[in-house]
């Protein structure tokens, strides 16, 4: 066990691409955590998606042993937090396990919206914060401007900010020294008290089972100990205790202030709750740690296999993903248009994208995702309350007294030449402006926005309007009653369940028209005219007509073509390709995929 005053627990707060992972790698390297040969680029982000996108999805931690200039040896625990708002709760638990943070800002880019949200969280946790200006070697670096920005926007003293280049190694020893000198050691912790540890995160390892990352507050965690999870009630016997150096390294015990892991025959990540308090089974502590929160999915969408035969594979893949990601939820869903699939809940849009990508990448599945939807709250006329996850399940409007939708507080940072376009985008999405300020050539604007307007294509629009320069962050502020209606799309007078959506009454017509126009271009022409309509209840608010096909004939058909013709008829009879103009129009899956990709207003 390490003496508390020789421990520093810290996290790194940074925007995507501002060099957090590279800086972490340099710190690890400097402390000799890995040999040159083991030093792969960006040790921390271990998932392929994390490496490619430069984002962190799961919290990770690394123990560094650092011999400081004062001659003492310190243990530095770097907690790597997920960098995205979708994982805001995980971020908060990570920060709660530390006493200080490095605020890493790209010296050419400046402060971004996401940085701001995380740095405020760190301030809320009473962190000491050391500003680090990274990439100072770049020609575009403007150290003085960025320092001023940190002071103006965040209100932190940036006069003794450390200048680094994680790429060249500049400023790395200064950074390590600052961690020891300027960040505090864990303030409390009794070795003899009953165990009290925070569950920071957990991940699934195919050999070890679930590996739980913990921060010890009081007491000692050791092998063979019987522990109890205070929230879930689970009791486990500890098999292994250790630290990440960054390789998993067994230790005898972890004491107050320390960060490490344990393994205890836990089968699924779902058995662990981030933020839970871990104590001794026989000698529990009297009070759990504060701040526990149950994580709820906020964005839902249907996932269907492109090929109906892959349904079982999809089910198996989701089960495997859930071993490692308990925050994503799913239940079976059957769609008339898309067949059997799952209604899935996610922490946010990035989370949705990550799961989708992992399913297709790690399990080789072709998926169709329906339009993302948010969670609506409804008060029924009989006084009961329901939550709606799928617009297709919308009850009859006469039974609904009130519909409430989730709203967010959005913070957008942008170079000011793009501000006009961004303001228009937010206004168009029913946004309410709450703040607008300028800091050195950049504007910061805050809007209240309905989440439902953001889940469609807000990110994409924002990116294209600002050519990728705007940054965006949000937090959910609660549900508000709005004039929401269910917009149905009817193809040949048949409602298409997978295209149903809830929209604000004022936006229904334009959304409906857009959808009809788009489908008209996407659905192949049939032998008869096909009406494509958008309707609210029984009332059609937009209509397009898919004109009948005029020509479908083979010009040359002689003796050598008879076999080909017959085989085509065999295929049409056997497959789904056969048109049924006497009943339903089959919408090809490509048309769905394209229709659901709502870009451009």
């Amino acid at each position, binding site marked *: 066990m390490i003496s508390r005053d020789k421990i520093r627990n810290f996290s790194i707060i940074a925007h995507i691409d501002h060099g957090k992972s590279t800086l972490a790698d340099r710190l690890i390297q400097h402390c000799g955590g890995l040999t040159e040969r083991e030093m792969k680029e960006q040790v921390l982000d271990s998932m392929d998606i994390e490496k490619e996108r430069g984002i962190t999805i799961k919290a990770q931690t690394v123990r560094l042993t650092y011999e400081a200039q004062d001659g003492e040896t310190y243990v530095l625990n770097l907690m790597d937090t997920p960098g995205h708002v979708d994982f805001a709760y995980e971020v908060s638990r990570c920060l709660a396990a530390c006493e200080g943070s490095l605020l890493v800002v790209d010296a050419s880019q400046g402060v971004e919206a996401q940085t701001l949200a995380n740095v405020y969280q760190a301030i809320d946790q009473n962190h000491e914060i050391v500003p680090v200006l990274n990439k100072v070697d770049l020609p575009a670096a403007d150290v003085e401007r960025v320092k001023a920005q940190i002071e103006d926007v965040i209100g932190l003293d940036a006069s003794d900010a450390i200048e680094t280049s994680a790429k060249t190694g500049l400023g790395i020893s200064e950074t390590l020294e600052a961690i020891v000198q300027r960040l505090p050691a864990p303030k409390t912790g009794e070795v003899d008290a009953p165990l009290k540890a925070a569950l920071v995160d957990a991940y699934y390892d195919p050999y070890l089972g679930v590996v739980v990352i913990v921060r010890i507050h009081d007491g000692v965690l050791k092998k063979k100990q019987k522990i109890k999870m205070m929230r879930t009630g689970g009791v486990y016997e500890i098999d292994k205790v250790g630290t990440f150096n960054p390789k998993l390294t067994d230790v005898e015990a972890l004491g107050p202030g320390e960060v490490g892991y344990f393994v205890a025959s836990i089968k699924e990540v779902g058995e662990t709750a981030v933020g839970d308090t871990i104590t001794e089974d026989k000698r529990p502590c009297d009070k759990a740690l504060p701040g526990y929160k149950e994580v709820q999915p906020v964005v839902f969408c249907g996932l269907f296999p492109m090929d109906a035969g892959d349904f079982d594979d999809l089910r198996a893949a989701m089960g495997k993903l859930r071993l490692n990601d308990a925050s994503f939820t799913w239940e079976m869903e059957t769609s008339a248009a898309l067949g059997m699939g799952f209604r899935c809940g996610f922490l946010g849009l990035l989370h949705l994208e990550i799961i989708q990508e992992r399913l297709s990448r790690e399990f080789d599945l072709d998926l169709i995702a329906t339009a993302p939807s948010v969670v609506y709250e409804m008060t029924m006329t009989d006084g009961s309350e329901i939550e709606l996850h799928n617009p297709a399940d919308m009850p009859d409007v006469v039974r609904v007294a009130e519909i409430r939708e989730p709203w967010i507080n959005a913070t957008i940072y942008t170079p000011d030449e793009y501000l006009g376009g961004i303001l228009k985008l937010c206004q168009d999405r029913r946004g309410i402006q709450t703040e607008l300020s300028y800091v050195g050539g950049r504007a910061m604007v805050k809007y209240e926005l309905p989440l439902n307007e953001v889940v469609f294509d807000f990110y994409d629009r924002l990116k294209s309007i600002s050519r990728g320069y705007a940054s965006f962050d949000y937090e959910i502020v609660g549900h508000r009653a709005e004039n929401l209606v269910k917009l149905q799309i009817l193809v040949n007078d048949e409602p298409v369940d997978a295209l149903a959506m809830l929209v604000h009454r004022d936006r229904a017509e334009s959304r409906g028209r857009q959808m009809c126009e788009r489908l008209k271009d996407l659905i192949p022409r049939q032998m008869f005219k096909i009406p494509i309509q958008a309707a609210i209840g029984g009332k059609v608010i937009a209509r397009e007509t898919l004109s009948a096909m005029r020509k479908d*004939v083979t010009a040359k058909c002689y003796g050598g073509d008879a076999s080909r013709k017959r085989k085509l008829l065999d295929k049409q009879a056997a497959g789904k390709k056969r048109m049924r103009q006497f009943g339903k129009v089959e919408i090809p899956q490509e048309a769905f995929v394209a229709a659901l990709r709502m870009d451009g207003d």
Partner: protein
Amino acid sequence: MTRESAQFGPQYGFGVYIHWPYCAKICPYCDFNVYAAKGRDPEPLLKAIRKDIAIHRPRMPEHGAADSLYLGGGTPSLLAPDAIAGLVTAAGDSFGLKHDAEITIEANPNDIMRMDLEGLKAAGINRLSIGIQSLRDHALAFLGRDHDSDVARAALKRAMKIFPNVSIDLIYARPGQSEDEWQAELADVLEYGAPHISLYELTIEERTAFGKAAARGQMTPMGDDDQADLYELTQDVLSAAGLPAYEISNHAMSEKYQSRHNNIYWNGGDWMGVGPGAHGRLSVGGNRYASEAERQPAAYIANVQALASGWSEASKLYPLDNARELLAMGLRPSSGIDRTRIESVSDRTLSQAKIDVFVEEGWMVQDGPRLALTARGRLLADALTAELSP
């Protein structure tokens, strides 16, 4: 319902098709089984085809003399008249040719200019199908043809002096072609008075030079609506000129000038296919068989020598196969098809509800058991066939 066994029906005809796969130049739109002729000795393949023809006769005791012989390709007009005579004689010796049998050869305009047409006639040929394709130089260049419009015109005149029964092939619905241009070109063609014209919309086939150009975005095929307009215009112009359609793409001055050979395909008759890649349909012993010869000339020749047949495969067609082929082919001619043939061969009834809708929409006419497509219906033939298919 008793099933019409797959017996040979002499009333639907029996024909012999010979495929000559070599061409002086491969056209960018053509996806037939063709090979460059340059430097090839035609003799081994001629010998193999003659042997293949001789071998098959004993396998088909129920068939009398053939109603037609068709030399297609490729470019069979590259052959010398005596080689052509050799093939006609082989077919006559083996299968027998009715005294009034239609004996057609496909010919390239360049070949017609240099050929001994009297010699061709003496070889037994009584019908010429000429690949004119267009009477416009820019179009011929676009289509990659090895002749210009002057040669096309001269060849047409020359052929018609010797052969009263001449057919010409034209390709329209070329990218950018306007209705006016096409109407003028058609009028130009009609001046020559050919009694049979085949008119094909340019079809972009995947594995051709045009197919690859279209996939790369270097060529944009004409849209379906514009093609439909040109098709309708073609129907009007040809009907007014006394050459109504007797099949989706084929027009004749009178029944006498219709292609007897091609009618065998559309009416569900039997045909023997010889030469590389040729298909056949033969009814023997109550079963109908589909044959396909080896596609590669060398493999075809080797097969004939080793196995005494150029076929690579011959498979028995099942009741549903026969019904689907009868329908797909039978809806093409304007005279249509007797539905009871399809129903009895498959033991399945065609949907009267669908037929009623087709009639109501003006796509089909029903005359007793006979189903036939209208001009508008012919434009949708593939979709209607798929819909009605048992």
